[in-house]
């Protein structure tokens, strides 16, 4: 047991805690948007912790340094892709017509889309007029 | 030439199929010429293999990668495989020519690729000496068959393919479970070694495993009641493909079934499997014949007829005697010839007259005399009239099954054959004595030549069956005589 593996294990522990949190958020939040709020972030952070922690832990246990390199690659990939997939999902959810939770206070996006649609309609009518 | 060059049987269609995308731009007709050329080459290779095997009297063992079985996968090209690979290639060649007239649906390049791969799949199934490799080739065959069934892109074609996929998928999954069990208890996949070990496998495992293998193959081999996909697929597929289904795809399944069943003849529960197969085969004949009786669509009718003949073959293969297997193989040959002819002519009528409904066959004797003549010969042969080839094999099958104590089954089969006689008779009468609209259709020379060749073959075998019976006997022995099979495979000393 050295510092490296202790740090690593600690990270893994924190990571798993966030995994747990993420899943809990998935259960507790009232609608898909809020579920995403709570779970994407913690799942991503959890992954960082678990994956990089594993790398450190391994190196600490005497495995090759390549472990940490590879785990960082995986972690980076997760870090880069998770927000993108979260974004794509929430956009998809909104556009597929899932309504906001009834406790929601504002929807600027809906207004924006409506305005855009009206503009397009006007443009089309003008085009027809010519 | 080195016997290992028999691997060209697999390599040639593969590399040729892969080449097609590169010549896609040349257009449909060029691709069909290419297809014809390749199938002709394949027939050449197959003929060489056939000659080698039958002159030396020894099977060719192709050892892929140079590994001796069971470490590597071997192709066992014995008397049966050599013969059937040749049949596969020849039928494919004929059907490649037929494709000129009968397949106009695009994309031709994909058709050609699938066509070649169907040929490849059946060849591999027949040749392989490894049980998992058999699964792979079976999947090649069936997935190609799915694609070709749907090839016409009509709703019916897609429907037929869908049914084929669902049933074939279930069948192949359980087949794989069977392989899993048998591998799990033996640690090997080589058929010869499995045959050696068959007696020592845990009886429960082998009972379940063999049942599953048989179940999976029976779907491909169109045994009742697992054959519900077949009439639809036969009807919906492009005409040349239907002929190939009937002439060799189902045969490959039947062969595999017989091969596996006999390989495990020392296994526990073997007798039950055999009995079950006999019953299924008998029911296959019965159900298919009656289903054909009132068909208005001739192609579908012949499809049912084909299924019933397959049932007959299955019966012969599963009565459990050498004579039975030989008769079954003989019937396989005869059936391949006859059904190729029938689907060729019926398909040709479908293309030229605009459909395969019975009404399109009225007065065909005057509209397309050559086609009608060939179709008549095929129909008579299918019924089992003497001096036509099927007569001989049918007699042997009946005798062999009675000899093994299956007199009732033989009786049912014969009773069902009466029905077959009736519907073929209707067809013949419609063609020759039905009303004629006064139209004459120019018949294609190449197809006429093929049809006449097949007619002559039918009559030749019918009049003088000896050479073909000799072939069938050695091919049948190849399946039945397991100890010789084991001795022929150069197993290396991997074992406990």
């Amino acid at each position, binding site marked *: 047991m050295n510092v490296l593996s202790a740090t690593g294990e600690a990270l893994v522990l924190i990571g798993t805690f966030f995994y747990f949190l993420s899943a809990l958020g998935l259960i507790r939040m009232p609608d898909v948007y809020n579920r995403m709020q709570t779970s994407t972030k913690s799942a991503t952070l959890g992954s960082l912790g678990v994956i990089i922690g594993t790398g450190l832990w391994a190196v600490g246990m005497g495995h090759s340094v390549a472990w940490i390199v590879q785990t960082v690659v995986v972690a980076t990939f997760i870090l880069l892709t998770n927000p993108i997939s979260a974004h794509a999902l929430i*956009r998809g959810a909104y556009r597929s017509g899932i309504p906001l939770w009834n406790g929601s206070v504002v929807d600027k996006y809906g207004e924006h889309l409506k305005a855009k649609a009206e503009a397009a309609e006007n443009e089309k009518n003008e085009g027809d007029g010519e | 030439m080195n016997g290992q060059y028999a691997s060209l049987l697999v*390599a040639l269609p593969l*590399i040729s199929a892969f080449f097609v995308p590169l010549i896609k731009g040349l257009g449909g007709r060029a691709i069909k010429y290419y297809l014809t050329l390749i199938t002709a080459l394949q027939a050449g290779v197959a003929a060489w293999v056939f000659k080698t095997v039958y002159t030396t009297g020894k099977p060719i063992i192709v*050892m892929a990668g140079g590994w001796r079985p069971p*470490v590597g996968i071997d192709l066992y090209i014995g008397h049966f495989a050599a013969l059937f690979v040749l049949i596969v290639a020849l039928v494919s060649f004929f059907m490649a020519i037929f494709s000129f007239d009968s397949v106009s649906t695009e994309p031709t390049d994909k*058709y050609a690729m699938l066509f070649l791969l169907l040929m490849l799949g059946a060849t591999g199934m027949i040749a392989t000496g490894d049980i998992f490799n058999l699964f792979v080739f079976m999947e*090649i065959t069936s997935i190609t068959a799915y694609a070709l069934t749907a090839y016409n892109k009509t709703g019916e074609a897609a429907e037929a393919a869908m049914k084929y996929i669902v049933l074939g998928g279930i069948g192949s999954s359980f087949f794989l479970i069977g392989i899993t*069990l048998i591998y799990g*208890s033996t640690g090997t996949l080589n058929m010869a070694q499995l045959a050696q070990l068959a007696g020592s496998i845990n009886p429960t495992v082998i009972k379940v495993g063999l049942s599953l293998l048989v179940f999976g193959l029976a779907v491909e081999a169109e045994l009742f009641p697992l054959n519900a996909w077949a009439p639809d697929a036969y009807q919906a597929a492009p005409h040349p493909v239907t002929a190939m289904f009937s002439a060799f795809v189902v045969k490959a399944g039947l062969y595999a079934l017989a091969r596996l069943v006999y390989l495990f003849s020392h296994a526990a529960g073997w007798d039950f499997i055999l009995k079950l197969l006999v019953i299924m085969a008998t029911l296959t004949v019965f159900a298919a014949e009656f289903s054909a009786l009132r068909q208005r669509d001739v192609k579908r009718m012949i499809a049912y007829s084909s299924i019933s003949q397959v049932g007959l073959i299955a019966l012969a293969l599963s009565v459990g005697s050498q004579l039975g297997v030989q008769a079954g193989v003989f019937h396989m040959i005869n059936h391949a010839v006859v059904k190729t002819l029938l689907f060729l002519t019926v398909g040709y009528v479908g293309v030229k007259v605009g459909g395969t409904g019975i009404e399109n066959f009225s007065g065909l004797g005057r509209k397309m005399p050559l086609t009608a003549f060939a179709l008549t010969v095929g129909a008579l042969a299918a019924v089992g009239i003497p001096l036509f080839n099927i007569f001989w094999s049918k007699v042997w099958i009946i005798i062999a099954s009675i000899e093994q104590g299956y007199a009732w089954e033989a009786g049912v089969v014969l009773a069902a054959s009466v029905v077959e006689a009736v519907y073929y008779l209707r067809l013949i009468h419609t063609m020759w004595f039905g009303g004629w609209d006064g139209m004459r259709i120019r018949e294609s020379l190449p197809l006429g030549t093929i049809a006449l060749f097949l007619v002559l073959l039918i009559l030749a075998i019918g009049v003088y069956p000896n050479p073909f019976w000799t072939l069938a006997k050695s091919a049948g022995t190849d399946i039945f005589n397991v100890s010789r099979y084991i001795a022929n495979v150069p197993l290396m000393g*991997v074992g406990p």
Partner: protein
Amino acid sequence: MVSVLKRSLAIITLLIIGYWLAQGLAGVPFGQDRMLVGKYYLENVKAQTGAVNAVTAIVVNYRGFDTLGEVTVLFIASTGVGALLWRRKKRRTAKTEGSVVLRTGSELLFPFILMFGTYIFIHGHLTPGGGFPGGATIATAFLILYMAFVDYEIPHRLFEPLEGLAGMGYVLVGLIGLAIGSYFLFDWIWQTWHWGAANLGRLFSGGFIPIIYTLIGLKVGTELSGIVDSMLTEEVRE
């Protein structure tokens, strides 16, 4: 009612079948060493094939015939899907463009995933990778571009011939084996010259495995992309 009956019947039937299968499986207890040919492979894989990964050695070398068949199966699927969904004039089915996030993200990830796919198939003899996962990864790269852009299409003119060429290459490698070592799919690189014998466990080893896996990787990548392409387009109706 019928449906309830049907469901109950199905459950009863499946329980019996399941029980039967379980009986069979009980004869092959989990976790026991029953290797026969497998043991031979493990003991000889390094010397005979130059590969560290026994699975890969089996897949590409010992049981190369299966893999050739497997490649063929995928080729059939791609051809079959292409044949079935073939249209004279076609167009993407997509109705909306991805956001700038997705578009930019996919563009940035694309080369990385390509590199990674290549890594997977080129290290097939060393790590649990190979042509199929590698090819699938490469196809994913194209898939992601598909997702992001409304009008993205794979370069057909390049992919279809490439698919054919890769397949031909595989068979040709096998045929070279037939010509050199008189066996089809004979590993002429390892068995004839022992090329890479000094490199066991490093990249340039494993006989013809990396070559074949490269071909397979390309083939699978192009094929899966082709399948996706076929499925995501529809006929243009005038």
